[in-house]
């Protein structure tokens, strides 16, 4: 029994990692766009890097969510560890991805090819990058707003109403994501942003696949970028959800505690929670969609072999 109890935390990351690896493998096999050996090997390498980055994220997630008691005792503010957990997971995910991008083979052979177009992080990320940035903006905006509107302790939301006899009613509701938890979250967000940017730059600078049409290399590069952005956006979405939902709940509780109606604050609380739900749902959908590889456009008829191996 003791052995089983020890194995559970060790084996618990294995199940989601194997599930992700299986999905990635099946998604890759689902669209055999080409039967080229180099392209197949490249897709397998991409799946391996994606699986390793997901494995790192799951291991970090299990450790942080398990939260040994010794860690909680050292945490400065209650809830800080929980608040930064998704972003630490995202940072680990992006960092492993960036390291994995360095393992792609260098150009070799007598004939080399490269596209005569500029690749940038913006052109590679496309709509998904804008979506992830938008989610990050929502998080920053939410943290600043809650930090400014929190009470002196930074852990609650205060609502005051003046009474006709000169007195006032003061209602405090919490937990509220003020600066004590918002500050570490902003730092974690900065680390996540840097790690993600470095991973995207590594994908942009990755050498083209040798002997494979550019459209395949381009599709694989977009798949890599979309997968990292999908994973990071999922973590950002959960952090936005936690921040905005907690803030909405605290505001709703404070409004309920005051014997006077605050219609604006009541609507604001509902709106914050509704937006939080939409963001986490959208982020989850984006992450799931990123599991499927980008399809390769139909290739034009290949040029016959030449004495130099060059296609005109």
């Amino acid at each position, binding site marked *: 029994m003791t052995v089983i109890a020890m194995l559970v935390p060790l084996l618990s990351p294995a199940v989601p990692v194997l599930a992700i690896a299986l999905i990635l493998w099946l998604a890759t096999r689902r669209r055999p766009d080409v039967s080229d050996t180099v392209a197949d090997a490249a897709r397998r390498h991409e799946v391996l890097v994606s699986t390793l980055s997901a494995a790192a994220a799951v291991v970090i997630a299990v450790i942080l969510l398990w939260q040994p008691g010794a860690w909680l005792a050292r945490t400065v503010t209650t809830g800080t560890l929980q608040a930064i957990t998704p972003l630490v997971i995202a940072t680990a995910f992006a960092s492993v991805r960036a390291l994995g991008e360095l393992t792609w083979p260098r150009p070799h052979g007598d*004939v080399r090819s490269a596209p005569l177009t500029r690749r940038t992080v913006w052109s590679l990320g496309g709509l998904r990058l804008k979506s992830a940035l938008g989610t990050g903006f929502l998080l920053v905006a939410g943290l600043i707003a809650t930090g400014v509107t929190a009470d002196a302790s930074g852990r609650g939301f205060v609502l005051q109403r003046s009474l006709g006899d000169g007195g006032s009613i003061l209602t405090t509701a919490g937990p509220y994501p003020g600066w004590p938890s918002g500050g570490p979250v902003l730092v974690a967000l900065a680390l996540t942003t840097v790690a993600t940017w470095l991973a995207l730059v590594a994908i942009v600078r990755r050498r083209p696949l040798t002997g494979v049409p550019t459209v395949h290399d381009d599709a694989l590069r977009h798949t890599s970028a979309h997968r990292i952005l999908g994973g990071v956006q999922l973590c950002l979405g959960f952090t936005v959800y936690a921040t905005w939902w907690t803030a909405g709940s605290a505001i709703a509780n404070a409004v309920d505690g005051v014997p006077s109606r605050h219609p604006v604050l009541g609507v604001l609380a509902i709106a914050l929670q509704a937006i939080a739900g939409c963001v986490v749902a959208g982020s989850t959908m984006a992450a799931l969609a990123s599991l499927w590889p980008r399809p390769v456009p139909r290739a034009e008829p290949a040029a016959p072999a030449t004495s130099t191996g*060059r296609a005109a």
Partner: protein
Amino acid sequence: MTDLFVALGSPVPVYEQIRAQVAAAVAVGTLRPGDRLPASRDLARDLGIAVGTVQRAYRELEAGGVVESRRRTGTVIAPTASSPGGTGTTSPPPAVVARARALVTAARQANVPDDVVLDVVRGVLAANVVSTGSTTG
């Protein structure tokens, strides 16, 4: 998307291969005025060659008026590169480009290697020079 191919074992220097292919892409309209070329460092990394090789190719193209270097945007196809009266590569009339494309299509369908197609074109050009005394082409 235009791909660049270089053969490291070719007797033609790599920088010349790059220069010729960029000039050809401009001539047939694949690259248009204002299109940005990859930074020399990025292209060198992609091809696995020295940065100086790509820089030399870009310098040759700039000297020929095909491209121009701009501080903010980098190396771009020159506005005058494809104009018949421009200083860069003289752009052939669209009808000539269309016939060249048709020739390539026919050669591909007939499974004729690219080297042979080029030999045929050079042969026709040489024969034309002999027969008409023209020095163009």
